[in-house]
């Protein structure tokens, strides 16, 4: 299992455009991939799930990948987050 922690910095929160990018990235991998905000955990393979988190500026989201290609999935997500500019990754 691998994790990636991201702080949302975009003023509009985790909105539709970056959410779409994350979901389509997640769907390229076989691993189970989740997004967790506080005590809510949803699959990252569903746009409705991700948007239902309602993540706003300042929220910290943890992405969790579990499966054979988890390492590739996490690095692809890291790239997608950087590209969308929606947040910053905690090292």
């Amino acid at each position, binding site marked *: 299992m691998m994790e990636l922690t991201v702080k949302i910095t975009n*003023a509009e*929160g985790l909105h*539709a455009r970056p959410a779409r990018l994350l979901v*389509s990235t997640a769907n390229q991998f076989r691993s189970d991939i989740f997004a967790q905000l506080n005590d809510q955990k949803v699959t990252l393979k569903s*746009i409705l799930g991700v948007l*239902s988190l309602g993540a706003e500026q300042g929220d910290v989201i943890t992405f969790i990948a579990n499966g054979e290609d988890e390492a590739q999935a996490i690095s692809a997500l890291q790239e997608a987050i950087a590209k969308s500019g929606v947040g910053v990754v905690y090292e």
Partner: protein
Amino acid sequence: MNSIRGISASAGIAIAKALRLVHGDWNIEKRTIQDEESEIDKFESALEKSRSELHRLIEQTRERLGDEKAEIFEAHLLVLDDPAFIDQVKEKITSERVNAEFALQETTIHLVEMFENLKSPYLRERAADMRDVGKRVLSHLLQQKMVDLADLSEEVVLIADDLSPSDTALLDKTYVKGFVTNKGGRTTHSAIMARSLEIPAVVGTKNALEQVNDGDLVIVDGIDGEVIVNPESSLVEHYQAKRIRYEKQKEEWNKLRDLPTATLDGHQVELAANIGSPNDVADVLANGSEAVGLYRTEFLFMGRGTWPSEDEQFEAYKSVLERMNGKPVVVRTLDIGGDKELSYLDVPKEANPFLGFRAIRLCLEKQDLFRTQLRALLRASVYGNLRIMFPMIATLEELMSVKAIYREEKRKLVSKGVAVSDNIQLGIMIEIPSAAILADAFAKEVDFFSIGTNDLIQYTMAADRMNEKVSYLYQPLNPAILRLIKHVIEAAHREGRWVGMCGEMAGDPRAIPLLLGMGLDEFSMSATSILPSRSLIGRLLHHDMRKLAAQALEMRSAEEVAHLVRQNVILQED
């Protein structure tokens, strides 16, 4: 023929066939089914048809309106393919043995509600995407044609209950000549979009959708807020002429958008706009405004259950300053109390709210909220050209207290290392006669004045303009008011300060020649008055207006002044 009245949301005239945009209600009947397999097949096939329809719309929208608009449908496509959506519908069909349409309706309503309950206003708006997707699949299940705004092929006037953000995003000016809605006002989303797209629109008609049929010929008069259904041919000709006149005039005005405001003999003044929220800035810029002359911050505090936080205020002020891109923004601190009530602010009822506990009087007592607003403003100041204005100042002591609080908050922020601009001008509203009379003393203590004529006139004439029995006393052109204004301008200029005006009088074409003659430096008005005012000022000679103003100050009544202006100034272009 039938005429419907509404609110003019976007000026212009449109004449075309009506197209009713009916989204339909969710009132699908629940049926118990025997064959789940065939219901699921039906649903799958509707999904497939929706999918190929969306692909086609994405292509077409990208070509016609660009990538950004096409993204709306790409988001729809993702929702359509979402397991959370598809699986819920299928699961409902199988476990509850209900028809596909009903399962789709229940799932969509459930997901729409989920979005509507989110805290972020941005994400709440995504409820519309979910609703759109549900409606699209339903239309295929029911084999009904859905009206697609991105798929029009002839000129129409849209008639709708209201237009959602996803509707307005797809308005294509080539085909949508105008629109009419039952709901809404001048500042609702659809009205703002109509003005930015320059599509004539009449909103808030209450029942246009019920009175118009598809294919009816409709005239939308966005200038006077009227909708005419199935007009006689003579009336069509009349409106065609009106449209040509308007478009010619607009073309003239548009040429002035990026020009400075100056009289024929080169005297320059500044035309600014009054706003109530960051969303108004687009309108302000589109109308060629040189500044925001009055940002009424109270809208940030109204229509909610708690005080807006410092950060929330900071974001709003920053947003306006950034969007104005270095142009001046005069922010008026909180003007509530009196007749403007807040549910979460406990102020006893008063017999005379306009003469009561409001604006700066309230802020000086409830200093916490005043200080919060000042901190938010100071923090935002580095994002643009901020000017702060205090309302309802009656005495110098009040101004001194306000300035002391301001300096204290500024010092505290700076000592904490927070960046604050060094060039924040401070000013006061001149709306209480005592401040107008003592303007020479006030001028030594501030950087600018802005004359709030709505209140100044009602306090000077002792007449509530909302009271029909005495509203005749609301006389902007009364020489008493003009002399007061002249006194304020002269007092400020002697100290090298500038004077603006942010009441309705500043955009009144009968008053502008006189205000110009008296030396007013800045005129702040509703955004739509800016270009007509710039056009008017460009046809006047400052030299003549000074003489005209001097004459007006010697008149005995508002009637005489109005007559004098009519005699000497051509207010309308022919």
